[in-house]
């Protein structure tokens, strides 16, 4: 049986990376294709079906396959990848998890909540409600270790980036821009609109995996008040907080 023609275009990225490009836009359907091919390649590597792959990096619309040029050639690798039927496989070890993540919206934790309400013509309550109601999907991680790009933010909340980026967006900030929501694992510069803050660490270098989310996971944000927010902070600092308390049923 001949596998179906692939949905991607090959683009070279130097002597050790093949970029398999599925499209050039942000679209949940493209992300699903990227995740499916990534999962299939990972299982093929584990099963020894392909050799010479170092690792892969999935993004919104492409999969970077990094290889060892001493062990394989791009032509050989492309041929092997083309034989993998990824559209009909979901390896068990790459199953997505669902997370319910607490957020303190507004106030000092969400300095842009009021301006987002103003720019979208909604009340702040409605902004929080819309954001909370959405079941987000982790489209990709990048920019910073553990930084998750989530989509899609509900259409009434779509705004371009802030005209004046902030030099310091505090760690834990939950922010929106365009159709995306991001959670900042680290203090960093940033131009997104900050709606609130999540007290749970998004990255912990002493855990494996270090990042809370992985590409393909689903996330709901749930509003909490200042007191439980502080309680979680204290639990995190004392090491009593468990990530597993945030995971719900598997998708």
């Amino acid at each position, binding site marked *: 049986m001949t596998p179906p023609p692939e949905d991607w275009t090959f683009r070279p990225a130097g002597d050790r990376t093949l970029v398999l490009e599925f499209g050039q836009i942000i679209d949940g359907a493209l992300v699903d294709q990227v995740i499916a091919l990534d999962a299939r390649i990972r299982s093929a590597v584990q099963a020894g079906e392909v050799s010479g792959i170092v*690792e892969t990096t999935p993004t919104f619309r492409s999969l970077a396959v990094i290889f060892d040029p001493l062990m394989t050639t791009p032509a050989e690798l492309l041929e092997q990848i083309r034989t993998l039927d990824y559209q009909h496989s979901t390896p068990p070890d790459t199953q997505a998890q669902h997370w319910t993540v607490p957020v303190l919206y507004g106030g000092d934790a969400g300095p842009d909540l009021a301006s987002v309400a103003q720019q979208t013509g909604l009340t702040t309550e409605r902004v929080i409600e819309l954001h909370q109601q959405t079941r987000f999907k982790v489209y990709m991680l990048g920019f910073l270790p553990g930084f998750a790009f989530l989509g899609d933010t509900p259409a009434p909340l779509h705004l371009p980036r802030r005209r004046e980026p902030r030099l310091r967006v505090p760690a834990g900030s939950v922010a929106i821009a365009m159709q995306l929501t991001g959670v900042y694992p680290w203090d960093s510069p940033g131009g997104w609109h900050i709606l609130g803050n999540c007290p749970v660490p998004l990255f912990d270098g002493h855990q494996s995996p270090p990042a809370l989310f992985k590409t393909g996971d689903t996330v709901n944000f749930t509003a909490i008040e200042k007191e439980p927010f502080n309680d979680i902070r204290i639990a995190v600092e004392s090491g009593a907080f468990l990530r597993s308390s945030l995971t719900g049923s598997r998708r």
Partner: protein
Amino acid sequence: MSPVTTAYSAGITIEHPGLLSTIQDRGRFGLRHLGIPWSGALTPVWQRMANALVGNPLDDSIIECFEGGLRFHTFGAPIRIATLAAADMIMKLGTTDGTVSLRPGRSYTLPANTTVSLLSTGRFRHALIAVQGIQAVSQLGSTSTYAKAGLGGIGGHALSVGVSLEVSASPQGPETQCAVAPPMDYLSTILRVVMGPQDDHFSASGQEAFLSGDYQLSTDVDRMGARLTGTAIEHRDEAARDIVSDAIVPGSIQVPGNGQPIVLLNDAHTAGGYPKIATVISIDLPLLGLQRPGSSFRFKAMSLEEAIDAVREHETMVKGVIERISPVKESAISSESLFSSNLIDGVTDGFI
């Protein structure tokens, strides 16, 4: 991550870390999908050679230090070190007025309580120091320091005053030296590239400018990347100045709206939204970490097949150099007569 324990109590203690000194190994692989870059030595060939000189596994941890200023002393018992750097580096036993010079490309056994000062890295910006049996703590599969996420190194940080690194055993085997210079011209002015993945985001004249112009290394260069300045590289149109975020690897050449190229290095983020006109091939990347701001480069395009051939040929040469590392007949440091004489015997004069 249990603390390192060793029966042999010897090692080095940092007296001054210099500009930036970090523990690096080959890198932290397999985590780019979580946004974690490789890190790792900017000049992997030197890393392997330095480790070979002290008899370590080639992928072992080394100390990467920028410019002069690193000073440390040995403690406990003798240890073995080797430095890879430009031929004109200045490293002395003792402090600034030390009379005994160490040279690159050779291993030395140092008695306990010896102070070593790297006074200058010479014509290149960094040097690598290997220590036989160095003990470093691995985190997420690597000892490489990535301070941004607090990974690797010493508690996630660069080396600082008072930090000690222990070794696992007393020096084994004879001191060694490189018989021939490294197989790489790190003063080359050519950066070889494979075009893409977004070369189609640039106009024909933009691509021509990229491949024919001189680009100077700016002062804005660190372990994350190097900004170069030269003839602006024109995008195809306004819309082509941004892309939906796509993977970045060390070597990716991003061109933001101002048309000036940025070459990403080991600590760069794993994805980004600027189009990438081309990728510098892996074996040419050390030039950007080694050469000084103001150095001028030209980009030269090659096919993917040619790039793979070049990398394989390079690997063969590196292996040849490592195989030809040979014992030194007489120990330089323990032989008292050499303390007062010039250690440079000419075997590797002209090294690099």
